[in-house]
């Protein structure tokens, strides 16, 4: 999305039908909306899973079950499930990043194509984040621990 040294207005340009531009921007905003819904669904499911985990472990804490060492393995397995449940946080970060990129594209498209009426304020455009997001960058290092 970065222009090289020539100002955008002086670069070779294309002509696109208005309805096509509207179609593309609309598609971008619709998927952003869908991503928002996805984020909500995953967050809600994770909350529910955590609640079930807590209930299950609470049940296993019953003093009547204290003398059953076999249940220790069950308890540890349940506790370890928290590792996978954290994917919700990672998913939310990823979805948030993707959303920002798509929105940036959508508003950039609009500001370049919609012209300006007299007295109208200049378009405000959020920057499109450039770097790949941390979750993607950290794929191989997930779970690593370093003490300084």
């Amino acid at each position, binding site marked *: 999305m970065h222009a090289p040294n020539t100002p955008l207005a002086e670069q070779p340009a294309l002509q696109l039908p208005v309805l096509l531009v509207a179609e593309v921007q609309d598609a971008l*905003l619709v998927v952003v909306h869908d991503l928002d819904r996805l984020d909500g669904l995953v967050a809600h499911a994770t909350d529910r899973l955590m609640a079930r985990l807590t209930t299950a472990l609470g049940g296993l804490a019953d003093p009547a079950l204290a003398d059953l060492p076999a249940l220790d393995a069950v308890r540890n397995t349940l506790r370890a499930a928290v590792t996978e449940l954290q994917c919700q946080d990672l998913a939310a970060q990823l979805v948030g990043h993707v959303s920002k990129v798509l929105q940036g594209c959508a508003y950039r498209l609009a500001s370049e194509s919609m012209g300006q009426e007299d007295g109208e304020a*200049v378009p*405000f455009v959020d920057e499109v984040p450039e770097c790949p997001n941390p979750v993607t960058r950290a794929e191989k290092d997930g779970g690593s621990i370093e003490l300084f």
Partner: protein
Amino acid sequence: MNTFESIASAQSLLPENAGEPGALTGGRMSRVDELRAQPRKPGEASFFYVDHHFQYDAVKVFPGEYFVSGDDVLIMTVLGSCVAACVWDSAARVGGMNRFMLPEGEADAVRHGAYAMELLLNAMLKMGARRETLQARVFGGGAVMPRFATTDVGARNTKFVLDYLATERIPVVSQDVLGLHPRKVCCFPVTGKALVKRLAHTHPEALAVEERRGDAVSVAKATAGGSVELF
């Protein structure tokens, strides 16, 4: 000129070359002139012009107004804390947009908001749309003058329109609401898509005044049922 055109000229909102009489050969009227000549229902937008940037016949929707069409026209507005619902019927291929701001007071707000939504939806149904095939895109509700507002007017407007659409079971397929920016929205009833751009607010006061004044007019119109004079 009707009421809303006089507001527009007072605030210098008329785009260049608006108001050119039909200059087509053979004495035919341009579409804009035809649209201007038609009688308008209460609350219906009537500010027609040619958008020279898009090369489109266009109508500008002011606070309290709506417009519905099945033609290849552009329906536009600039939103501060007002909200606009762009509704489209994918089967009948008609679309429309309203724009409103809720007045203070719970009961008045519900009445006003419901009225604004019903005007739009009824007009669409009259043009062949059916509730089952409607979809909505919602815009606006920005906090454009955060330092001067005691309540978040934009958030209130936004909550109303989203709750209303949820109750009516009209799916919202996209939205650009809240935040701190005014928005310019161009809706195309022929495809149901809208172009929206966020604006840096250099003169938020002018927009806020327009929205509050427009709201007062439309509330008066809704209750008095007659024409309104602004002094």
